[in-house]
């Protein structure tokens, strides 16, 4: 009798722990998804602003071409290529900003201002996303989670290497 009771108790504890781990993991996956959605939205907005800058008067044809192609690539990139495409866009914007801010007309100053605010947000969003990804990866390495397949069919989140110096 006593042994049965002990076995049941142990079993219950194990079950509770597994359910706890599963909830935890589910929450982390959710965090990865929302932080990515947030980052993705901000990056899309940046690409849109880059296009607007490319079409503005203060942009010479060569940098306009560079910027347009970089922005389109960033928008259309697949998940795997996203990071490098965004980095290219950061680079293109970075090249432009140094003399862009000197030559910009008043009407475009607000555009650059917006870009600056957006870059600050993107930097934070990247930090939040990478953090979510790394904690998820850490929890998924736990043997209990791997053994009982608590992650289910959710893909392992990928770390992106983003260039930080957008502006």
């Amino acid at each position, binding site marked *: 009798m006593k042994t049965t009771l002990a076995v049941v108790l142990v079993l219950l504890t194990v079950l509770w722990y597994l359910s*706890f781990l599963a*909830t*935890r993991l589910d*929450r*982390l996956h959710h*965090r990865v*998804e*929302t*932080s990515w*959605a*947030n980052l993705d*939205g901000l990056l899309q907005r940046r690409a849109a602003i880059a296009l607007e800058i490319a079409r503005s008067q203060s942009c010479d044809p060569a940098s306009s071409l560079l910027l347009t192609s970089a922005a389109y690539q960033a928008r259309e990139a697949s998940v795997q290529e996203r990071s490098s495409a965004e980095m290219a866009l950061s680079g293109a914007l970075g090249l432009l900003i140094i003399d862009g801010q000197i030559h910009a007309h008043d009407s475009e100053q607000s555009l650059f201002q917006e870009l600056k605010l957006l870059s*600050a*947000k993107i930097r*934070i*969003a990247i*930090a*939040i996303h*990478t*953090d979510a990804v*790394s*904690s998820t990866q*850490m*929890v998924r390495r736990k043997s209990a989670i791997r053994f009982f397949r608590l992650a289910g069919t959710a893909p392992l989140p990928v770390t992106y290497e983003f260039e930080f110096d957008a502006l």
Partner: protein
Amino acid sequence: MLTKKLRIGIVCPYGWDTPGGVQNHVRDLAEFLMSAGHDVSVLAPAIDDAHLPAYVVNAGKPISIPYNGAVARILFGPIAFARVRQWIAAGDFDILHLHEPAIPSISLLACWAAEGAMVGTFHAAAKHQKVIYAIGPILEPAIEKLSARIAVSEAARLTLTNHLETDAVVIPNGIYAKRYANGEPQEKWSGNTIGFIGRFEEPRKGLQVLLAALPIIARFAPDVRVLVAGPGDPKEVEESIDPQLRHRFEFLGRISEKEKADFMSSVTLYVAPNTGGESFGIILAEALASGACVVASDIPAFDSLLGGGEFGALFESENPSDLAKVVIELLRDSDKRAGLSGKGREHAQIFDWDVVAEQIFSIYEMALVGAQEITLSSENRPWNRLLSRDGDKK
């Protein structure tokens, strides 16, 4: 999105009645957010309800226990946990902002109990690594529920990355820069004066370093005076001073915020000889904003706040002769003083609430993306959901 009115719940882990950096920060943040039109409720432990502002909810009497090298007034236990859950359930919050969720107080309890958009701010720069290694596995599941983390300084961020393996965005503590910029220089505090503000009885505030440096300073600047402001009994300190130098000291006792601004604008040099235990150094930000020329010890928090010496002079911590050297040099060179204080005043603008609250708010926005309203996590457990459908639910 910025125009949307939010219901924000802020949890302060330390007793509201006792003065402290975190409490001040929470108070100013809450008041700033309210003036921006948001609904704010602060949950904090407090000894009695009488003096609490309307937006503070009392979580119970704090317990004084030694934690991390100082006496902390914190609160935990089953009754506190129930109060926290009650507050969360009744608050109907869009977002929770938890301060110091890594110490055993109500912020951690709230983090454990709630589900939804949560932001955590880490203030402390801890030294006791072994303790953190021991409690790390307990904290981890709670800390990882936070959608975004803020550290008040680079030192606090390093503590977080080293011990809990998570990153944070650095947003400094805020000050009302204008209040300090408007400080009026007072005749009685001017001249060759050195100012010090703080609970001078605590050794970590470092008044003893200044005392040890004074004989050397007095030799080179005979008319120097030291003005010490802050709560405490000056008798013991006075007795430890060389009788010949005693008349150079003036103890002002506790001063008001307005007097503080005037004080800092009046003194020739503001000295912060703290020997450690400081994670941000809000007092230095205030001194810079008031246009004081700052001399501070080179502990990590001060070093980073002063930009490695760009916005104020640094001396080797706990080294009185180095302090004396720096002070004498500055007392003699008014151009250098003016240069430092000018740069410092400009730099202090980044600590202004207008700037800091904007940054905090953009973190809120990010935490809110895709998040639902704050609920108790127990409500989301499948069996509770099943039970609650039958009616009775607390």
